[in-house]
C-alpha cells in the first residue's frame, strides 16, 4: 500500500514540475492556445505514465515468479556458456546436414536414399549441401580450437576433459552399481566419463572426417602430390568413420541425452545452458561441492554476485 502511495506522490511531483515548465514556456501565448497545448501535453504525460506503470508491474510479477521458482528448484548453474552453446548448435546443424547427404552415398540401395537425394533436388544439389555442412564443421573446429586456447572457460574445460584414473574407477563402479553389487554410485565432477567419451569421439571424428573429406573435396590438387591410392584410402576412411560417427551419435549420444528415462525426450540444456541445483547435485556432485567450497572460502566474491 505504502508503495502505491509513494508512486502517486511521485506522480504528483512530476506533474507539478511539468506544470512549472509549461507555464514558463507558454507564457508568451494567448491563454486559449496555451490551455489547449497544456491539455494535450497533460493527456500525453498521463498516458505515458500509465504505460510505464504497466510495464513495471509486469516485470515485478515476472521477478516474483522467478524468485518463487528458485525457491522450489534451487539456484541455476550455468553449465554451458553462450559461446559453447553456439558451437554446439553449429556442429549439430552441420553434422545433421552431412549425415543426411552423405549416408545415401554409402547406402545407395537403401529405400530412403533415393528419396533423400531427391529431397535436395538431385545429387548435384546434395553434394553442394554436403560441402556447406563441411564448411560449417570446419568453422566449428577452428572456433572450438580458438575457444580452447583463448578463453578461460575453454582452457579449464579442456583440462577437465582429459581422461584420468578416476574415470576408469567410475566405469568399474558404475557397472557394479548397475549389476546391483553395490549401492554406491560414482560421483562425477564437471565431466563424467560418458561425456568425456562423447567429447573425444567428436574430436577424433572431426579430425578424420575433415582430413579425409578435404582429400576428396580437392582430389585433383591432392593428387599433384599423392598417388591415387591415397585418395582411395581417404575415401574408405571417410566412409567408415562416417558410419562410426553416426552410430556413436545415434546410440551413445542420443541415449545419454535423449532416450535416457531421466531426460526423455531431451532437455533444453543445449539452448539455455543451465542446470538446476538438484541436477547439479545429482549429476555433477563433485563440481557442485567445489563451487560451494569456493564460495565458502571466498565470501566477499560470493557476496558481490
Amino acid at each position: 500500500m505504502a508503495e502505491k502511495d509513494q508512486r502517486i506522490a511521485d506522480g504528483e511531483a512530476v506533474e507539478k514540475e511539468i506544470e512549472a515548465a509549461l507555464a514558463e514556456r507558454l507564457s508568451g501565448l494567448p491563454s486559449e492556445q496555451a490551455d489547449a497545448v497544456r491539455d494535450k501535453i497533460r493527456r500525453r504525460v498521463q498516458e505515458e505514465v500509465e504505460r510505464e506503470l504497466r510495464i513495471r508491474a509486469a516485470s515485478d510479477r515476472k521477478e516474483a515468479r522467478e524468485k518463487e521458482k528458485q525457491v522450489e528448484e534451487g539456484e541455476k548453474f550455468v553449465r554451458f556458456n553462450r559461446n559453447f552453446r553456439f558451437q554446439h548448435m553449429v556442429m549439430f546443424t552441420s553434422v545433421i546436414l552431412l549425415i543426411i547427404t552423405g549416408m545415401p552415398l554409402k547406402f545407395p540401395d537403401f529405400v530412403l536414399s533415393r528419396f533423400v537425394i531427391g529431397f535436395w533436388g538431385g545429387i548435384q544439389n546434395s553434394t553442394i549441401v554436403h560441402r556447406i555442412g563441411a564448411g560449417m564443421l570446419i568453422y566449428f573446429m577452428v572456433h572450438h580450437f580458438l575457444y580452447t586456447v583463448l578463453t578461460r572457460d575453454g582452457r579449464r574445460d579442456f583440462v577437465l576433459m582429459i581422461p584420468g584414473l578416476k574415470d576408469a574407477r567410475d566405469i568399474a563402479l558404475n557397472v557394479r552399481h548397475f549389476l546391483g553389487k553395490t549401492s554406491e554410485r560414482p560421483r562425477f565432477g564437471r565431466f563424467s566419463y560418458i561425456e568425456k567419451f562423447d567429447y573425444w569421439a567428436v574430436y577424433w571424428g572431426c579430425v578424420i572426417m575433415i582430413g579425409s573429406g578435404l582429400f576428396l573435396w580437392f582430389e585433383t590438387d591432392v593428387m599433384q602430390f599423392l598417388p591415387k591410392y591415397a585418395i582411395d584410402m581417404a575415401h574408405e576412411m571417410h566412409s567408415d568413420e562416417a558410419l562410426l560417427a553416426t552410430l556413436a551419435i545415434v546410440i551413445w549420444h542420443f541415449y545419454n541425452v535423449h532416450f535416457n528415462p531421466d531426460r526423455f525426450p531431451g532437455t533444453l540444456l543445449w539452448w539455455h545452458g543451465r542446470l538446476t541445483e538438484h541436477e547439479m547435485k545429482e549429476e555433477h556432485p563433485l563440481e557442485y561441492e567445489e563451487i560451494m567450497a569456493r564460495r565458502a572460502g571466498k565470501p566477499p566474491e560470493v557476496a558481490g554476485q
Partner: protein
Amino acid sequence: MIRHHLAAALAGAALLSAGLAAAAVPPGVNDCLECHGDKSIEKTLPGGGTLSLYVDLQAYRRSVHGNSGCATCHVDAKAPHEKLGKVSCGRCHADAAKSYAGSSHGKLRAKGVTDVPGCDGCHGKHDIRKSADPASRTFRLNIAATCLRCHKDRAIEQKYNLPDQKVMIAYEQSVHGMASRKAGLTGSAVCSDCHGNHGILPGDDPKSATFRQNIPTLCGKCHSGILEKYERSVHGKGMRAGIAESPVCTDCHGEHTISKVSDPNSPVSARNIPKTCTGCHDKEAISSRYALPKKRFSSYMDSFHGIAVEYGMTKAANCSSCHGVHDILPSSDPASSVNKANLPRTCGKCHPKAGPNFAKGSVHVEVTAAKALGVFAIRMFYIIFISALVVLFVLHVGLELYGRWREKKEGASGGKGGAQ
C-alpha cells in the same frame, strides 16, 4: 494398228465374231475394261466370299506398267475368259524372281503358304509404281508400313512362330523409325536396308545380312566411320576372329529399338551403359574364359563415379568415358585410353589438372589385401573398431537400463516390505 482393226471389228460384228478375233490377237486394255471397268464385277470364291475383279484404269495408267497392255502380264487373256493362269513377274524380272525364290517368303510360298507375300504383296498389282515414286508402297518412307501390314499382325506372328509383333513395331519409335517417319529423312534405315528385299532371310541363316557375324558390315554400310573404329577395337577383332561372345553393334545398341545416346531409355545412355557393359563383363563364364578382370561392376558402383551416375549425375564418368566407345582396347594395348601411360590424359578429360599420380593405384578398387592393401587395412580396422564400440555402447546402455529396472523393482518391493 491391231487395236484399230479390233475396234472396228468389235463395233461392227456380233459377239461371236469378236471372240474369234480375240483368239487370234491379244485383247487391248479397252477390251478388258469392257468388263473389268465395271465396279460391280466380282467372282464368288470357293470359301463363300467374293473377290472384286474391277481394275482402276486411272491407277493402272499411272503405274510403272501403265503403257503396256494387260496381256503383257496376263499372257493367256482373251475376251471373254474363265480363270486366267498365274501372272509371272519373273518373265521380265528374272533376278528378282530368283532371289525371291531363295528367300524365306519365297520358300514358304513355294510350299503353297498364301500368307506370305508374293510380288504383289509388297508391290501391288495393277498400280505398281517405281520405288522412287513417293506414292509407291516400296518408296523408302513407306516400306515400314508395307512390312508392318503383316508383321504387326499378332495372328501371323503366332502362326509362323515369329518374334512378338512388339519387336518389329518398336522400329517406329527407334531413332531410324523416327527419322523416316517424323523427319522424312530418306537416308534413314528402313526394313529393307538391313533385311534385304527380295532375298530376305531370317537372322539365324548365315547367308542373311542380319546374321550376327554380318551385322557390323551391315551397319557399316551407313555408319562407315564407326565401323572403321570398331574393326580396330578389341570387340571388333574378337568378332572377326569368330569369338561368339564378342559384341556386335546390336548387342549394345539394340535392333529395332535403337535409340539415341541422349535418350535416357537407350541401353547406351550414360545412365544405362554400366548395366549394358556388365551384361557381359560381370559374367563369370566370360571373364574366366577370356581371362578378363572381374568385379568390374561392383567396383565401379563402389566408386563415387558409379554412385553419382546411379543417382542421375550423368556428367560423372561411366564405362565409356574412360574405356572409349567403338574403339575400346584392352589396357595392355599402348594405344588404349586406359593404358597406365594414357590414364592422366584420359582422367584429364574431366579432371583438368590430372597428372601421373592418377595412374598410381587401381581405378576399379577391389578391396583385398593383395590388390589394395591400404584400403583393405583401413576397412579391417574400422570393421573391428566399429563392432567393438557398438558392442560397448549397447552393453553400457543395456546395463544402465537393467540397473534402473532392478532399482525400481527393489524400490517397489522394499516399499511394500516397509508397509507391512
